[in-house]
């Protein structure tokens, strides 16, 4: 049964009400628009521009899930992931990665990431993964 995009957003809103997300990406433009779109789908989104900023935020707040870019300037994504897993072992992490970095992403899976997606990805696919992760737990 085909669904309009409006219906889609509404159904997503219902299921993910109040889910707290931490979005880590050093690409300003990307992280801003992604945060807006996820907020529109009723997620509580907080953004971090770097690995260090993300760790600082995580120290004061807890989140239901983190979306982590694997290619950042200050810290290697895999290092951030390791620290996340120490600080919040129960928080699922979804990795976003560019083409050709699939190896690193697969390595990330070994360190406890829930899944990985290749940029640019379809938003609905990302939302689907987030929902799965939250339902399943870490």
């Amino acid at each position, binding site marked *: 049964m085909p669904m309009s*995009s*409006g219906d889609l*957003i509404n159904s997503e809103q219902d299921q993910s009400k109040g889910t707290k997300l931490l979005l880590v990406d050093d*690409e300003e*433009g*990307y992280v801003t*628009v*992604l945060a*807006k*779109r996820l907020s*529109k789908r009723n997620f509580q989104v907080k953004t971090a521009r770097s690995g260090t900023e993300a760790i600082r935020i995580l120290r004061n707040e807890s989140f239901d899930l983190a979306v982590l870019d694997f290619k950042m300037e200050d810290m290697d994504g895999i290092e951030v992931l390791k620290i996340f897993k120490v600080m919040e072992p129960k928080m699922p992490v979804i990795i976003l990665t*560019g*083409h*050709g970095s*699939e*190896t690193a992403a697969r390595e990330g899976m070994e360190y406890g990431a829930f899944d990985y997606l290749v*940029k*640019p*990805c379809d*938003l609905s696919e990302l939302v689907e993964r987030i929902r799965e992760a939250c339902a399943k737990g870490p």
Partner: protein
Amino acid sequence: MMEKHYYTSLTRNMTLIVILVSFTPLILIAGLIGYYFETSYRQKVMEHLHELVEKHQQLINSFLDEKLSYIKVLADSYTYDELTDETFLQNKLVILQNAYSGVFVDLGVVNSEGVQISYAGSLKLLNADYSKAEWFREAIKRDYYLSDVFLGLRRTPHFIISVKKRRGDTEWLLRATIDFVAFNSLVEQIHIGETGSAFIVNSAGELQTRPGTELAPNITSLLSRTSWAGMAGTGSAEPSASPIEEVKTSSSGSNAVSGIVKSRNRNIIFILMPLKSGEWTLAYLQDQDDAFSEVNRARVIALSIFILGCLAIVLVALFISQKVVGQIQKADLEKEMMNEQVIEAGKLASIGELAAGIAHEINNPVAIMVEEAGWMEDLLEEQELKENQNVDEFRRSLKQIGLQGVRCKEITHKLLSFARKTDPVHHEIQVNDTIEEILSICEERSKFNNIRVQTELDQHLPLISASPTELQQVFMNLINNSIDAIGSGGGLLEIRSRVEGDKVVVDIADTGHGISKSLMARIFDPFFTTKPVGKGTGLGLSICYGIIKKLGGNLTVDSSVGLGTTFHVNIPIHSETS
């Protein structure tokens, strides 16, 4: 031009070095051996001649001594009265003539006044007066005398042997005439080669026997200037005059003078030996060329061999250096071609790196664009905008942005595949299966274009290690290209697989329009395409190239315009990357 000059000078230098290295020892050895051989040979010839002349010297001396001793015996054995008896003398002459046929011509007794008082012989010389004759004046002074050759009263050449005896207060001589012919033949026996001959001269240089050849004036003068200081036949002898320039003299241990004199533009070897206690000289003359004819002949043969050898060396040196330089030239050419290939491969690799970098860089902006478009789509859902008349146009436009973003993603993905940045998992693959699989996918397209597909697959093809998706991509690209090349006009697509050495080879041949020579060098370059804009990315073949190279194989192409194109895929059975 420069190249040609380089090879020419290389050939020349090699030839020169080979010639120099071969010639130097050859010339040195030939020169050295030749010199020593010639010197020793000449010495040997001279020694031989010396010996020969010496033997004849002894022979002549003993001949003369013998004849003298007969006369001496005759004079001692019989009294003056007996010898003056003509019948008695005639008897003695007959005995002598019987013993030595033709040597003794006559006998005579001459008194102190020079009158021949008794004579036996064929001529009428009784009472002949010799008082004025030179021989008599010399003979009367000595006990024995051997005269020079002279014509005398009888007008034929002869010489006289005389023995002086005393009878009371008066002296008398017993004399015998020696036939010149008999004596001459003794000397003429010495005849060597074509020009070697001997003769006798007296101290004044007057000939005593006939020389074999006419004598040049300077030789005559040389002979007349030679005197034998050691009269007794021992000690060294020297030419009386200081040697003239062209005369080389040497005196050996035996009483002899030898050397070479230049005469009438010829070098004449001479050997001089004393006879008759130095009063006469036995001279031997021979043309140098004649005497050394053997060594000259040897020299001619050696020289011919030498020249032939040199010629052979030169020819071989030329041949070898040309051949070697030809090989070098060929090797250089191959190297150059190899370099070109390496440069080409390097170029592709660097383009790959560049493309990978660009793909990464483009990825993020594209991701942002897609998300921004998505955000706008989200906003369009707001109620107040729904009534806007252009809202459908906005939606369409945003969807288009999203679609193009996906297309960009595909392009960057392909670029990264070419740059080998992806690392798919390898499996053992049967190439034939992959080909069949792709052909089934393309079946509709080829049928639509009236293309007849022929396969000739080796059923015993070994498995290779590769990524199945990559291999599919390679054959998909190549087969699609072939179908595109044939176009809608129809044609033949042939796919053959076989094993060649340690490689699996797949040929994909089409009867399409072919690839022109000018494009051939660029077909594997990324973004190079002959398809209309929007129809091809120009990445297909470069990705195939990248994949096959990564497997350690090779992708080559043969093509002729109008006839078709054949791609050859080589994949090692034992992949380098496995």
